[in-house]
């Protein structure tokens, strides 16, 4: 149990350090969620991501679809009354999953050839940058 707590603490501080965001400042007003253009595809609301961080339940975030649905559009950050940049927190969660495992969450073979030929280069570069190490 002790060991688990330590692991959780470590994750907690890693997300805070890497993102540079003090999520304890969040007052759960929900503006991030109200303005999020892709919220309907998320399993945890942006506001809930902050809530679970505050409650020390980071494990929920590692298994959630939400950080992978976030498109880093920075709307939540532009509207946050506490000046939190939630996109940075989402990225810290993605990085946490991608870095140690070194596992690629996207490989070129997964993309249908027809789509590869159609997509602008920018889509591929950004897609791979967000989903691979």
């Amino acid at each position: 149990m002790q060991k688990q707590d330590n692991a959780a603490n470590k994750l907690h501080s890693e997300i805070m350090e890497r993102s540079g965001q003090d999520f304890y400042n969040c007052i759960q007003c929900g503006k991030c969620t109200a303005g999020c253009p892709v919220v309907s595809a998320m399993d945890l609301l942006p506001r809930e991501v902050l809530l679970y961080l505050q409650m020390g339940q980071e494990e929920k975030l590692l298994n959630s679809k939400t950080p992978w649905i976030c498109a880093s559009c920075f709307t939540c950050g532009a509207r946050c009354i506490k000046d939190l940049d939630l996109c940075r927190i989402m990225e810290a969660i993605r990085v946490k999953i991608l870095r140690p495992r070194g596992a690629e969450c996207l490989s070129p073979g997964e993309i249908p050839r027809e789509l590869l030929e159609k997509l602008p280069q920018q889509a591929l570069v950004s897609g791979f940058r967000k989903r691979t190490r």
Partner: protein
Amino acid sequence: MSYLYFPGCTLKDKAASVMEKTALQAAAELGLPLEEIDQWQCCGAVYPLTDDELITLVSPSRTLFAAKDRPVVTLCSACHHVLKRTRERLAADKDARDKISSFLEEEYPGETPVLHYLELLRDELGWDALKEKVKLPLEGRRLAAYYGCMLLRPAEEMAFDDPERPRIMEDYLQALGAEVITFPFRNKCCGAYLAVTEKQVMEDTSNNIVNMALEYGAEELTTACPLCRYNLEQTPAVKEGKIKISYFSEPLAEALNLEAQEALR
């Protein structure tokens, strides 16, 4: 004075004949010649959002180091976003600056100005001067601007325009003589790179934007981002020909009656 120009990956491929050619010809016509940076590298398309990730700042930093103090002009929203934020990071974060400089084995040249093409038109030329250069005003054409995310946010770093009530693109279209349609969702995300893995999410966000523009009476939606353009073009409204998506430099080429507009037909 001539400006350095950073093309980026998509401008040399999928968007080459349409965005790059029209914008470069227009710049020459307007007396703002753009000179392509020698040996440029991909900007990385996304700005790294964790404080401990410096390696992905190396590539955009090379561009800034190569430019020294000459202004770098961008066309693509994503390139602009990455180069501008890298510039801000290097200026504000001595530790990051020193590490990157040491990695590149080059002296930090100081703060390289990074300007988007639209900023060049607004701040160096001015809308009145642009208006005077217009040969074929786009009269009666109902054009709407789609900003997307990357040019506007985060506003403190991008310093491009008001992130919620921008006007630079509307002012620009007005200078070209178009009937400007201002619609909600013009600064809402199109779904970006989710086009690669989450097609349905991208289609939903893009549909919302295009349908809103149609509802407000727009016949053409103009953007600076190749990925926005691609996503918006995947919608039924565009496929059925109800509305057209263009790069912002296309109406400019038309209004200036440039040869490059031939490529658009």
